[in-house]
């Protein structure tokens, strides 16, 4: 009889050599480590190389890609920043991290001269995302805002309000046509983005100055729209697990008539399903109240300089180069990232790559902003948990629940 032995695996811990960024020698360019979300088109890599070359041997920007998920990016960065790791020089901060990173003193404030340049050059929405306590803490590199995407073969005139859109969808459902409204209903940051867009569009806010919770009738109106959609035939059966990617896929599969999503869906549809792409059109984010312009939660990234960087001055110079309009145009044309500099919106090559440029510009001027607080991670978790699943929102108590949970989340001693 043969006996089989179970082999045990010995995992040898590999020791990684730590590369000291640079010595104090005056010879050779300084290496600046840039940590950023993965950019597949290669436009970040090209810009990093060009800026390094243009510095005349002063610095060399080394690109380091983080995970695709914003939560994971934050966890990776925070772990190193909190440990005083000097190997990060430039970091791409999601727009909702500004207050937190500034309060924890993980990033340097932007110097006055560069701040003045940003304020004169960029659109108001992106500037505001990088501002905390009247000071800029990051240099906006790209922005993002959701539009309404719809099928023009099913919907000849795009709806302008949420109420009208849901009615249109129900009407399509009655006729047995594709009718879903694809929107981010999963319990994650996208749910907060949706809720905040609705609250801001209703003319309200979630947090006021000094972290006061100002949840009120506008939040109720927002929650009621979410509930109405979730319990209507307009809701995709997968609404509770839908994030940006799933919404994009469902629209491309032809199941939906409407989609609320970022502009990446435009190119994605051309690649995935040209038949759907041919019928795809765009319109402004729907209004909550007919008389109020929509205010859509701004996305995008700002570049901050780590407080532990050994070369903050060079890093700011590098950031200035990386975010100059010529580079932003490349990021937009090649990579689809919405620019933050106002002038780019009139560049013909950009307009061609971004047919919806005027809508984007308008929504970055009349914008919505997620709560700016150092405890944003806690607040957004509280919002997500209070509103998920959207079909179970209770109209009578949702305002109280939200207010209590958000207040709780702002104290250090509450489990959420």
């Amino acid at each position: 009889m043969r006996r089989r032995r179970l082999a045990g695996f010995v995992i040898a811990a590999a020791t990684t050599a730590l590369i000291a960024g640079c010595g104090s020698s005056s010879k050779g360019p300084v290496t600046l480590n840039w940590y950023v979300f993965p950019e597949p088109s290669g436009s970040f890599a090209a810009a990093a190389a060009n800026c390094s070359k243009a510095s005349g041997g002063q610095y060399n920007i080394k690109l380091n890609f983080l995970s695709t998920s914003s939560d994971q990016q934050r966890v990776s960065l925070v772990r190193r920043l909190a440990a005083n790791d000097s190997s990060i020089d430039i970091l791409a901060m999601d727009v909702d991290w500004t207050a937190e990173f500034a309060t924890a003193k993980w990033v340097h404030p932007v110097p006055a001269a560069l701040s003045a340049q940003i304020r004169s050059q960029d659109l108001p929405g992106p500037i505001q995302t990088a501002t905390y306590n009247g000071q800029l803490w990051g240099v906006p590199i790209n922005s993002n805002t959701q539009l309404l995407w719809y099928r023009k073969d099913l919907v000849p005139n795009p709806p302008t309000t949420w109420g009208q859109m849901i009615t249109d969808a129900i009407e399509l459902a009655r006729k047995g046509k594709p009718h879903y409204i694809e929107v981010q209903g999963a319990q994650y940051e996208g749910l907060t983005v949706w809720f905040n867009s609705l609250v801001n569009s209703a003319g309200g806010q979630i947090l006021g100055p000094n972290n006061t919770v100002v949840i009120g009738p506008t939040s109720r109106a927002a929650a009621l729209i979410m509930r109405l959609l979730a319990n209507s035939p307009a809701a995709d059966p997968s609404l509770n697990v839908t994030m940006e990617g799933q919404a994009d896929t469902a629209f491309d599969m032809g199941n939906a008539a409407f989609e609320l999503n970022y502009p990446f869906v435009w190119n994605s549809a051309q690649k995935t399903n040209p038949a759907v792409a041919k019928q795809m059109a765009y319109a402004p984010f729907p209004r909550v109240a007919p008389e109020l312009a929509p205010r859509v939660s701004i996305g995008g990234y700002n570049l901050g300089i780590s407080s532990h960087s050994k070369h903050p001055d060079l890093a700011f110079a590098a950031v200035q180069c990386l975010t100059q309009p010529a580079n932003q145009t490349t990021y937009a044309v090649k990579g689809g990232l919405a620019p933050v500099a106002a002038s780019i919106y009139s560049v013909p090559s950009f307009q061609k790559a971004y047919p919806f440029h005027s809508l984007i510009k308008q929504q970055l001027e009349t914008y919505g902003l997620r709560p700016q607080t150092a405890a944003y991670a806690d607040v957004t978790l509280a919002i997500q948990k209070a509103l998920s699943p959207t079909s179970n929102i209770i109209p009578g108590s949702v305002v109280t629940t939200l207010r209590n949970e958000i207040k709780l989340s702002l104290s250090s001693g509450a489990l959420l």
Partner: protein
Amino acid sequence: MTTGAVAAPPAAAAPPRRRRLTERAREERRLAALLVGPALIVMIAVTAYPIIDAVILSLQRSDLRFPAQSKFIGLANYGHVFSAPVFWQDVLHTVIITVISVSIQFVLGMCLALIMHRAIFARGLVRGVALIPYGIVAVVAAYSWELAWSLNSGWIPKLLGLSGDPLSHTFGTYVAIIVTEVWKNTPFMALLLLAGLALVPDELLEAAKVDGATAWQRFIRITVPLMKPAILVALLFRTLDAFRIFDTIYIFNQGAQGTESISMLNYATLLNRLNLGLGSAVSIVLFLFVALIAFVFIKGFGAGAAPGGEG
């Protein structure tokens, strides 16, 4: 993630020690100490130190974002944990997943172990194939099951003719998570039970057969009692693991639809909210739960007792 309690089988009772040691015995002891020493130091460094550090952190208000506000606050964090409804909800979710998934794993694992034990031909192949799910990386397994269950891309909703999305509902999500856990961990259970089956002497079973016992009677009256130590160890290992469930839920939906486990809560508090004090308190409480489970199994049911040792 969390530090699991390891149930060390108590060493065989030492004979009464001789007072006087020979020169040779003393030398051997010194050698033994030298041999064990490095391992002990490593254990202290990688296990004891983090646990003690977590205990200290759990007694503080400590937040990565607000280092200036750190201070000692005694047992307040534990008070926050035990008074939070979300904590007890998560305990309930964890218990539901643990009890159901380990029960199913036990029944299926026993069947699988019997098949592997009795396989007449291709024994190695049967055992190898049965172990494949256990060899797959947990995250990969969770992703493939998540895709299999999702309405648009998966084969399971099509197979069952579902019109709704199972992962949009609490019940469907629990079923999906438990199926994943069962699929992934049954082979490990089977392996531990197979070792127990080897303890059952064939002569006993043959004698029972001669006496006219049916197959079921032989299994219940002879095989199971003789396997008891192995069964308890298998159940103990799997229960401890299942109670710390994290990867599957994290991949499926990060705890949405009312499936958040204690480990998920712990992760959210520590790594998303960066609240080290409160998060460490959750870790320590989870550690105590796990230790309690181990204690109940070992002291209550006699898991880890020497084979045949009837308490």
